[in-house]
C-alpha cells in the first residue's frame, strides 16, 4: 500500500459522505472533491494499474430479420478470455483443444479472417470468448463477407417469375462472397486498427502468454474483455413485440428498423402535396443506391459498390441542368437515390409501395423507363454493360422499348469515349438492383449500367476494404488537402465519361432535342471533388460550401459511413440532398428568413420547390461566408420498409431488417491471476477472520484476569 493519490481523492469523497461536522466543512469537502476530480490527476489510479481501455475498436452488432438473427453477441457482463494471437489455421488447435486456460480471446490478422476459421471457432464457442480482427491499411487480394447472391429473396426473380434465374442459378453475382456477414456468432467480434494499441496488445501477449517449450504459460496471463451485449433476440417479430411491452413508464426498446430517407429530384418540379397518378405525365427515372455495409458496424466505405454509382448520377444531373433549361425534354427526368438497398431494397421497395398506394407524386403508370447506375468503377479499356431483364423482355412492347429506345440512346452517346457499351447475354438476369423492385410491381423497361458482364468485378463487395484504394483513387504525395480536392484523378476522368454517357442517354430517352445532345458534357472538376469528399475527407471546402450551417458538424476529416443505420440522420443522405440541390437547383436572392418562409413571396412556393439555406464559399478577402438560398426540386422521402408501416414483421415481400439496441460497447485488456492465488487469498482471509474471532472472544472473556493490575474502582462496565 503506497500512499497513492487515489487515497486522497477517496478521503474527500468519504469526508463528503460521512461528514457529520458542520455544513461548511461539508461544502469545503464537496468543492475539493469536485476540483480534484476535474484536475488532470486521475481519480482512480488502482484501476489504471489494472485495465487498459481500447479506444479504436469497432464491434459487430446483431441484426435481425423476419426469420433469423445475424451478427455477434456478448454476455451482459462482457466476455473475458486469455489472448491468443493466431499464427495460422493450424494454430487454431491451441485455443480450440490444446490450450490449458480456456476460454481464449483469439486475435486474428486479416489474412486469417476467413470463413473456415470463423466457422471452426463458432463450433467450439465454449472455448472461444471472442475474436479481435486486426484490420490493416493494405487490402488483401479479395474479401467479401456478403453472400454470393445478394438480396436473393426480395428481388424480382422467384419461383413465379423467371424460376431458372432465381437464386443465382444462372449467374452467381458475388462468387467471392463468404457469407460471414450473415452468420450468427454467440461471441463478440471486434475490429482493431493497426496502431499503437494493437502493438501493445501483441506485446502483452508476447510477454505473458507464450508457451515456453511446450509447457503451459505461467500466470498472470494477458486477457481481453469485450462488451457488446445486444438486447434483441431471435427475429424481428419477436423484438418488435417486445418493443411494445409497456409495463413501466420508460418502455425498453430492444430493436429499431433500419431505414433513412431517399433523395429524389426532378427536372420539372412536382407539387409535393398532390399525390397519385398524373395525367399525361411520363417520367424517366434515373436511379442509384446510396448505402453499403461491412461486417463490422458502421465502417462501410462502399467505394465501388455504391459511391461510384451515385457520384456518376449526380454528375449526370449536373450535366443535364443547362440543356434542360434551354430545351426542356418532353418527358420529365426523376433522379432517385435509394437508401437501404443493401438490406433487401428498403428504399426502392418503399418508393414502389408509395407509388402503388398513391402516396408519391407520381404513379407506376407514369414511369416510362428506368435507368439505374450500378457499380461503374470502369477503368480505361474495360467495358460498360447494359443489363436488362429477360423475363419482361419476352413481352414485345417492353422488348422494343428496351431495344429501340434505351439501348439506342446509349449506343449513340458513346462517341469519343474510352470504353465500349456492351449488351450482355440476353438470357442473363438483372444484377441485384433497385430496378428489380419496380419490375416486381409492373413490367417497366429498364436498364442497369454496370462494369461487370456477369459476376461482380468488385473484389471487396460490401466489405471494409471497398475504399478509395479499390477505385485506384491516388493523389500525388506532395499535395495539400485543398489541392487534392481540386486534382482531377484518372478515376474521376473515367467516371466523368460515364456520367456524360448517362446524361446524354437520359436526355434522349426523355425525348430531348437530338441536336443538342453532343453539347452535354459532365464536369470532371465536380466529379473529382465529389470523389474526394465521399472517399477521402468529407470536411473539405466544397462540401462546407454546399451544406447548411446547422449541418456542418456532420462533415469529418474521414470519409462518411454508408451504413444505413437506424437514426434517420445518415451523412450520405444529407450530403447527396444538398449536392443535388446545389447542382440542379438555382441560387436565389432570398434572405435567410425569406428562405425559411418562401410562401410569403409571390413567385416562390414551398410546395413546388424546397428552399435550402447553404453556407456558401468564403470570399478571398473576408472571413464571413457568402451564404445564400438554393431553390431546387429536391425532396426527401422516408425510406423505411413497408413491412413496418403495415405491421407485417414476418413479411416475405418486404425488407424486415432491424438493428438491435445495446447499452454500451467497450473493450479492455488486463492481466488475470491464477485460480490458485485467488483461492489462497480467500483461504487466508477466512483463516484470519476465524482466528481473530476466536482470539478476541478468548481475550474478552478473560479480560478481567489479563488486565487486572491497576484496576480502577467501578469499572466493570463491559
Amino acid at each position, binding site marked *: *500500500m*503506497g*500512499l497513492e493519490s*487515489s*487515497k*486522497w481523492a*477517496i*478521503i474527500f469523497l*468519504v*469526508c463528503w459522505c*460521512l461528514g*457529520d*461536522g458542520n455544513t461548511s*466543512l461539508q461544502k469545503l469537502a464537496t468543492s*475539493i472533491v469536485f476540483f480534484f476530480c476535474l*484536475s488532470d*490527476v486521475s481519480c*482512480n489510479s*488502482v484501476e489504471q*494499474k*489494472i*485495465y*487498459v481501455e481500447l479506444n479504436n475498436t469497432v464491434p459487430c452488432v446483431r441484426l435481425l430479420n423476419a426469420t433469423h438473427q445475424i451478427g455477434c453477441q456478448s454476455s451482459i457482463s462482457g466476455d*473475458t478470455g486469455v489472448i491468443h494471437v493466431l499464427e495460422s489455421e493450424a494454430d487454431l488447435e491451441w485455443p480450440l483443444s490444446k490450450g490449458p486456460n480456456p476460454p481464449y480471446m483469439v486475435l486474428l490478422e486479416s489474412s486469417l479472417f476467413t470463413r473456415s476459421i470463423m466457422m471452426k471457432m463458432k463450433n467450439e464457442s465454449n472455448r472461444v470468448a471472442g475474436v479481435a480482427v486486426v484490420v490493416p491499411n493494405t487490402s488483401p487480394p479479395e474479401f467479401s463477407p456478403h453472400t454470393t447472391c445478394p438480396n436473393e429473396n426480395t428481388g424480382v426473380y422467384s419461383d413465379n417469375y423467371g424460376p431458372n434465374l432465381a437464386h443465382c442459378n444462372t449467374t452467381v453475382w458475388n462468387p467471392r462472397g463468404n457469407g460471414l456477414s450473415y452468420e450468427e456468432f454467440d461471441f463478440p467480434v471486434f475490429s482493431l486498427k493497426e496502431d499503437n494499441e494493437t502493438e501493445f496488445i501483441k506485446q*502483452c501477449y508476447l510477454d505473458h502468454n507464450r508457451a515456453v517449450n511446450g509447457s503451459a504459460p505461467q*500466470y*498472470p496471463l*494477458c*486477457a481481453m*474483455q469485450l462488451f457488446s451485449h445486444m438486447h434483441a433476440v431471435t427475429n424481428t417479430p419477436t423484438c418488435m413485440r417486445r418493443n411494445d411491452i409497456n409495463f413501466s413508464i420508460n418502455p425498453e426498446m430492444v430493436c429499431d428498423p433500419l431505414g433513412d430517407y431517399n433523395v429524389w429530384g426532378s427536372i420539372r418540379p412536382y407539387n409535393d402535396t398532390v399525390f397519385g397518378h398524373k395525367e399525361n405525365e411520363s417520367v424517366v427515372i434515373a436511379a442509384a443506391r446510396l448505402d453499403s455495409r461491412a461486417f463490422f458496424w458502421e465502417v462501410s466505405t462502399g467505394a465501388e459498390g455504391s459511391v461510384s454509382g451515385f457520384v456518376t448520377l449526380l454528375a449526370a444531373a449536373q450535366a443535364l441542368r443547362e440543356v434542360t433549361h434551354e430545351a426542356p425534354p418532353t418527358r420529365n427526368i426523376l433522379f432517385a437515390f435509394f437508401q437501404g438497398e443493401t438490406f433487401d431494397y428498403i428504399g426502392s421497395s418503399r418508393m414502389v409501395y408509395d407509388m402503388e398506394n398513391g402516396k408519391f407524386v407520381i404513379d407506376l403508370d407514369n414511369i416510362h423507363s428506368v435507368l439505374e447506375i450500378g457499380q461503374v468503377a470502369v477503368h480505361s479499356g474495360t467495358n460498360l454493360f447494359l443489363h436488362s431483364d429477360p423475363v419482361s423482355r419476352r413481352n414485345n412492347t417492353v422488348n422494343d422499348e428496351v431495344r429501340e429506345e434505351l439501348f439506342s440512346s446509349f449506343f449513340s452517346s458513346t462517341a469519343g469515349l474510352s470504353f465500349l457499351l456492351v449488351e450482355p447475354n440476353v438470357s442473363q438476369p438483372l444484377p441485384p438492383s433497385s430496378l428489380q423492385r419496380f419490375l416486381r410491381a409492373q413490367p417497366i423497361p429498364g436498364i442497369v449500367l454496370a462494369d461487370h458482364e456477369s459476376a461482380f468485378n468488385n473484389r471487396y463487395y460490401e466489405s471494409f476494404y471497398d475504399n478509395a484504394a479499390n477505385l485506384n483513387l491516388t493523389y500525388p504525395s506532395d499535395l495539400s488537402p485543398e489541392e487534392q480536392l481540386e486534382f482531377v484523378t484518372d478515376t474521376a476522368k473515367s467516371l466523368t465519361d460515364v456520367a456524360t454517357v448517362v446524361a446524354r442517354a437520359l436526355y434522349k430517352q426523355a425525348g430531348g432535342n437530338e441536336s443538342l445532345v453532343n453539347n452535354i458534357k459532365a464536369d470532371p472538376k465536380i466529379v473529382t471533388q465529389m470523389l474526394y469528399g465521399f472517399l477521402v475527407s468529407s470536411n473539405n471546402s466544397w462540401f462546407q460550401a454546399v451544406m447548411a450551417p446547422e449541418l456542418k458538424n456532420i462533415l469529418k476529416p474521414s470519409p462518411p459511413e454508408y451504413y444505413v443505420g437506424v437514426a434517420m440522420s445518415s451523412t450520405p443522405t444529407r450530403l447527396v440532398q444538398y449536392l443535388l440541390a446545389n447542382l440542379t437547383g438555382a441560387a436565389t436572392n432570398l434572405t435567410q428568413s425569406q428562405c425559411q418562409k418562401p410562401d410569403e413571396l409571390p413567385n416562390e412556393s414551398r410546395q413546388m420547390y424546397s428552399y435550402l439555406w447553404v453556407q456558401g464559399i468564403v470570399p478571398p478577402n473576408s472571413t464571413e461566408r457568402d451564404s445564400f438560398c438554393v431553390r431546387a426540386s429536391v425532396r426527401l422521402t422516408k425510406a423505411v420498409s413497408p413491412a413496418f408501416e403495415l405491421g407485417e414483421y414476418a413479411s416475405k415481400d418486404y425488407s424486415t431488417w432491424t438493428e438491435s439496441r445495446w447499452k454500451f460497447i467497450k473493450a479492455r485488456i*488486463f*492481466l*488475470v*491471476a491464477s485460480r490458485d*492465488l*485467488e483461492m*489462497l*487469498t*480467500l*483461504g*487466508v*482471509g*477466512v483463516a*484470519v*477472520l476465524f482466528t*481473530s*474471532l476466536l482470539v*478476541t472472544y478468548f481475550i474478552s472473556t*478473560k479480560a478481567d*484476569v*489479563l*488486565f*487486572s*493490575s491497576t*484496576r480502577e*474502582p*467501578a*469499572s466493570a*462496565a*463491559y
Partner: protein
Amino acid sequence: MTAAVFFGCAFIAFGPAFSLFIFTIAKDPLRVIILIAGAFFWLVSLLLSSLVWFIATKATNAQDLTLQKNLLIFGSIFSVILQEVFRFAYYRLLRKANEGLAAISEEDGPPLSVREMAYVAGLGFGIMSGAFSMINTLSDSLGPGTVGMFGDSQYYFITSALMTLALTMLHTFWGVVFFEGCERKRWWVIAVVLCVHLMVFSLSLLNPFYVGSILPVYAIMLLMAVWAFFSSGGSLHNITLLWTCRKSNTETSS
C-alpha cells in the same frame, strides 16, 4: 480479480477490527459513540493535511513527477504529525467529557475508564484509517483483472490487505499507549509514538519491495502489542495466572 479476492482481502484487512468491534464494543453504546467520534477525528486530521497537500500540488507544476512525489511524502509526514495532534486533542476532549459523564451517570465515578477509552479511540482511528486505505483497492479487486500490466507485483491486493490490517492494529495500540502516557504525564511516550508512526510510514514507501516493508511493519506491530499490553494493566503474572486458571479448570473439570 474476482469475488474470491474481494472477500479474501476484505476479511484479511477488516477481520480483526470486525471481531474486536463485535465482541468488545458493540454491546456498549457509549463505546460505539467514542469509536465513531474517534473515527471522525481521524478523518478531520486527514482532511486538513490533504488540504495542505492539495494546495501544494496545485501551486506547483503538475508535470514534474519527482516534485509531485516529494510533495506527496511531505504531505504524508504532515498528515502523520496531524493525526497524532488530533489524537492528543481527542484525549483532551475525552478527559473533559469523562467528568461530565461521571456527573450524570447512575454509578459512582465515570462509566468508562481512561484505558477503555484509549482502546476504543485507538480502534476508531484504526478502522477509519483502514477503510481509507483499503476500500478503493477492494472495489477494484472485484473486476476480472489483477495488477501487473505495468510492472507492478501481482500480490498487490494481498499485501495491501496485510498492510491495512497492520495499520489498524497499530493505531489501536498507539491509542492505548498514547493515552496512558498522557495520563501519567510521560510526554516522551508521545514522541515515541510519533516516531514509530513515521517509521511505519517510511517503511510503506519501500513498496513494492514487500519483504522490506511488510515484515518490519509486523515486527513493529508485535512490539507495540506487547507495549500496549503492559501499559494497559497486563503483566506476565496475569498470563501465568490465566494459564494456571485454565489448567486448574481443566483439572477440576476432568
